[in-house]
């Protein structure tokens, strides 16, 4: 070979000055003394190659005598031109990468991607494999890759750039491209605690190699055994508030075993729910999920009767959490307009307590309204619930505030503590907390308003409840057998003391028709009463309309709670004359000291020893035409004559056209005067016939009585 080069380079000179013998001598001299230093190397094709090539292409050394060769016999991963390729062997690489030229000892001591390696789960499309179909160094590396110095490019001699995880995805595309795997190419928190020499994408985003050292002693950075805590916490430190909570299954289920999920005896709190790759559902979920349940399926998967969290099983009761789209954004809960209401709208599964002031102290600690993975507490301000139900916030300064003595008394007695909303509402039980009664509102209200507690007692002579009613405003009640029955919530909205937030500020005030948690304002117009009793509106603007500040026309005579009588729920009349409750009630005004002292009824009593048949019993009309009474109220059959037998205090006249007084204090006559019926149709004539008028005058008109 050397002689050929010699000839090419020195042909002209030799031809001119040398004899053949001299040529031979010169050639030998060149061979002996110059050749070893001047000879270049050649590749198997005979092409002259540079010294740099021979640095690795060891078999390209010229004139190598096989018998003297020191080249070790190797099991080369591939063959080139029928010869074992020596370069793509670890032994060759190590001759430089042992620290003397470059240092890749950590690669050679690596347990990852050690060659030769079975393909296994990898999906290798374009990269070369060795002669046995296995992964070898040359699968990823080639010393001939271009621009190895390019940052993040093809260094270190890669076939495909590692930036954007391109090289990794050549084989592991199925482990990086779905939501069942940890995402790549995403920004990570600036305060992450990943090792300083971690690999990041061009814009600081996360790549496969950020967590997975291609060559290293661990397949994943910072992972000892199956415990990924250190790695996960590098970026997700906030999630590690989960430790020791019920969602840290390594703590809460430490002594339990399950067919699903991880080894609860470990220390990796993430592993219970998340796997980094090949999850069974989105969020790298480690367990099977009912995909029909949507996002809530991840919660219900455990919080079901047979799930890991069966002690807190979701009963599909309480606050609805499906198919509800929120129209407005709720920044406090991180909810955007149009988001669907989900379990996680209220709960942050990684944070036992929102403010981190109430750190969990022990495993399986029972939650409160301040903890329980709530994003906001249900405190005295009901922060969590009010985030959405802002219109309910006016109750927080009212007598229904849990901060007030009434509730505190209840909490002391029951040795419990509740938030503003959960004291009544069970978010995951029935609508109202723990109530199975058919009228939960009554039961709930009477827990406090039972006469035994601080709250106003309403146990005596109340407006009837549990009865059907017809409401112009569709007031609420409770449902039973397809009917809406009257209950506390028909008249009361416990969330709103008055019409406005300001008017809700109370300090144990006694309510009136302007507030009192009424569903409709009852002052000055008695809208609430008239909503169900519209026929009584005839009272308004008559002499019986005694509306005054805070008291409507109805409230003068009627008290919906703690009334004097059960019938008619008459307000208490005090010490007034009269034999019956009707008389006592009427005479409380129609007496010398009463409001209606100008209309004192001096003669009125009808003998009560004789039973009188009602018109209904007599078959002459409806019982209400001329109601007769017994001691406890009206009788539809037999009773005695009382004030209301003839008078209807709600209507100035039985004639519709005369029902409105023309002026205040208008003097009545036989067409008005709150008479229930015209005199000729009275019940009286049925008994007394033609002597009716005489007897009426005798008993009702002292002047005429004297005449007789």
């Amino acid at each position: 070979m050397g002689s050929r080069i010699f000839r090419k380079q020195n042909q002209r000179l030799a031809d001119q000055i040398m004899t053949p013998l001299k040529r031979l001598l010169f050639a030998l001299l060149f061979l002996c003394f110059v050749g070893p230093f001047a000879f270049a190397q050649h590749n198997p094709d005979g092409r002259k190659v540079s010294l740099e090539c021979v640095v690795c292409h060891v078999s390209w050394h010229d004139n190598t005598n096989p018998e003297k060769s020191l080249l070790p016999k190797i099991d080369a991963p591939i063959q080139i031109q029928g010869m074992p390729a020596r370069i793509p062997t670890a032994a060759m690489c190590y001759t430089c990468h042992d620290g003397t030229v470059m240092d890749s000892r950590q690669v050679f001591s690596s347990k990852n991607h050690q060659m030769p390696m079975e393909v296994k789960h990898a999906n290798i499309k374009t990269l070369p494999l060795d002669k046995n179909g296995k992964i070898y160094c040359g699968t990823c590396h080639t010393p001939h890759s271009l621009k190895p110095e390019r940052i993040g490019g093809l260094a270190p001699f890669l076939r495909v750039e590692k930036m954007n995880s391109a090289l990794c995805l050549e084989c592991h595309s199925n482990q990086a491209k779905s939501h069942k795997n940890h995402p790549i190419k995403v920004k990570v928190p600036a305060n992450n605690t990943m090792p300083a020499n971690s690999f990041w994408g061009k814009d600081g985003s996360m790549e496969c190699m950020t967590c997975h050292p291609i060559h290293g002693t661990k397949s994943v950075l910072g992972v000892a055994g199956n415990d990924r805590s250190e790695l996960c916490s590098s970026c997700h430190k906030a999630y590690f508030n989960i430790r020791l909570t019920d969602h840290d299954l390594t703590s809460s289920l430490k002594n339990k075993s399950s067919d699903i999920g991880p080894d609860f005896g470990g220390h990796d709190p993430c592993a219970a729910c998340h796997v980094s790759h090949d999850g069974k559902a989105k969020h790298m979920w480690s367990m099977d999920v009912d995909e029909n349940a949507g996002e809530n399926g991840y919660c219900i998967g455990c919080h079901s009767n047979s799930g890991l969290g069966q002690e807190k099983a979701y009963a599909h009761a309480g606050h609805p959490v499906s198919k509800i789209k929120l129209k407005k954004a709720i920044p406090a809960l991180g909810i955007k307009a149009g988001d669907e209401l989900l379990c996680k709208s209220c709960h942050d599964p990684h944070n036992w307590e929102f403010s981190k002031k109430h750190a969990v102290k022990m495993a399986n600690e029972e939650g409160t309204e301040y903890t329980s993975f709530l994003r906001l507490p249900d405190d005295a301000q009901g922060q969590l619930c009010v985030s959405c139900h802002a219109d309910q916030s006016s109750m927080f300064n009212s007598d229904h505030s849990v901060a007030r003595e009434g509730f505190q008394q209840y909490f002391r007695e029951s040795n419990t503590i509740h938030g503003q909303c959960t004291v009544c509402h069970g978010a995951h039980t029935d609508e109202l907390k723990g109530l199975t009664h058919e009228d939960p509102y009554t039961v709930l209200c009477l827990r406090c308003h039972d006469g035994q507690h601080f709250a106003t007692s309403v146990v005596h002579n109340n407006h009837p409840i549990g009865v059907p009613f017809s409401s112009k405003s569709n007031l609420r009640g409770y449902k039973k057998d397809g009917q809406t029955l009257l209950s506390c919530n028909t008249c009361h909205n416990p969330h709103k003391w008055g019409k406005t937030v300001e008017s809700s500020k109370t300090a144990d005030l006694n309510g009136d028709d302007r507030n009192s948690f009424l569903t409709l304002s009852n002052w000055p117009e008695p809208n609430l009463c008239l909503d169900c009793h519209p026929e009584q509106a005839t009272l308004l603007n008559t002499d019986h309309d005694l509306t005054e500040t805070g008291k409507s026309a109805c409230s003068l005579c009627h008290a919906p709670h703690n009334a004097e009588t059960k019938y008619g729920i008459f307000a208490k009349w005090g010490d007034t004359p009269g034999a019956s409750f009707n008389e006592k009630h009427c005479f409380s005004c129609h007496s010398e000291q009463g409001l209606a002292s100008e209309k004192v009824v001096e003669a009125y009593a009808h003998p009560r020893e004789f039973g009188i048949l009602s018109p209904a019993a007599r078959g002459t009309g409806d019982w209400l035409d001329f109601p007769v009474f017994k001691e406890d109220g009206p009788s539809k059959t037999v009773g005695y004559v009382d004030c209301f037998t003839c008078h209807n205090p709600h209507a100035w006249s039985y004639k519709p056209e005369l029902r409105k007084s023309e002026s205040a204090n208008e003097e009545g006559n036989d067409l008005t005067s709150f008479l229930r019926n015209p005199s000729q149709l009275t019940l009286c004539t049925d008994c007394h016939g033609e002597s009716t008028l005489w007897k009426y005058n005798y008993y009702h008109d002292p002047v005429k009585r004297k005449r007789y």
Partner: protein
Amino acid sequence: MRAKYLLLLILTTCFCMVQGLIAQDINFAAVRVIEADFNFPTDICGNDGGDVFVLDAMNDRVVQIKAGGELVIIKPQQESIYKAVGIAWINGALWIADTPRSRLLRMEMSGRISQVIKLNHQTEPVDVIGDGENLVITDRRNHTVTVLDKDFVEKYYWGKRGEKVGEFINPGFLASGPENRIIIGDILNRRVVSFSPSGRYPQIIAKPGVEKGQIFRPKGVALDSKNRVWVADGYTGAIQAFSISGNYEGIASNAGKSLALSAPMGIYIDKQDRLWVVESFASKISVWRIK
């Protein structure tokens, strides 16, 4: 006629040269193999007391093999020596070439790092030897050999990246030769060269190639009691001897076969002419007696 004589002379000369290239086996007897959970150790040195020290840097430690054979782990207490390459016993102390961090470290037997010398020019020292009061280091980054004075100040350096004699492509392990000549494995130039202490008068000791008498990846160099320069070849695994003037002396053999060790790196020859070889890829130390 003159031409014929000249031809005869040349043929005779060629015959002698070829003879010199014929492998001459030098028998080695295996003494022991030391496996101490090494993790790609790189270099080895010894002291006058018969103790031998192995730089097991990937384990962040030095392993002392006492004269009696006992192994002692020396863990650095203050400074990590992770990924260091060279170690030498110089003037009664261990010196470590802390390659990636451009430092020389003096380490006590307790593991305490008693001196840290920060090197200039982003030097990445591969190996270090003593030369009187001076320290000599090879630099894989700048392809030079640097001499530090007794105050550890750079005195002078020589070499640059290149193929000419006097230039280097990754100078590696060092040894001291007769007349204080500095023997250097010029790794990617595939040769072993000696220099005067001042860096002059280069003498090629081993030339490139993969036959016996040639070198492909010169790694550890050491001299035996006969002043033969032993050179470990990091690829072929051969251990070969050359005279200081560059004549091939032979190849280490055992049971009639040339040794082919596992990526030998640093070598050390003790006073009993036992050759200690760091078989880096196999993470072990093999000890041979030169017969």
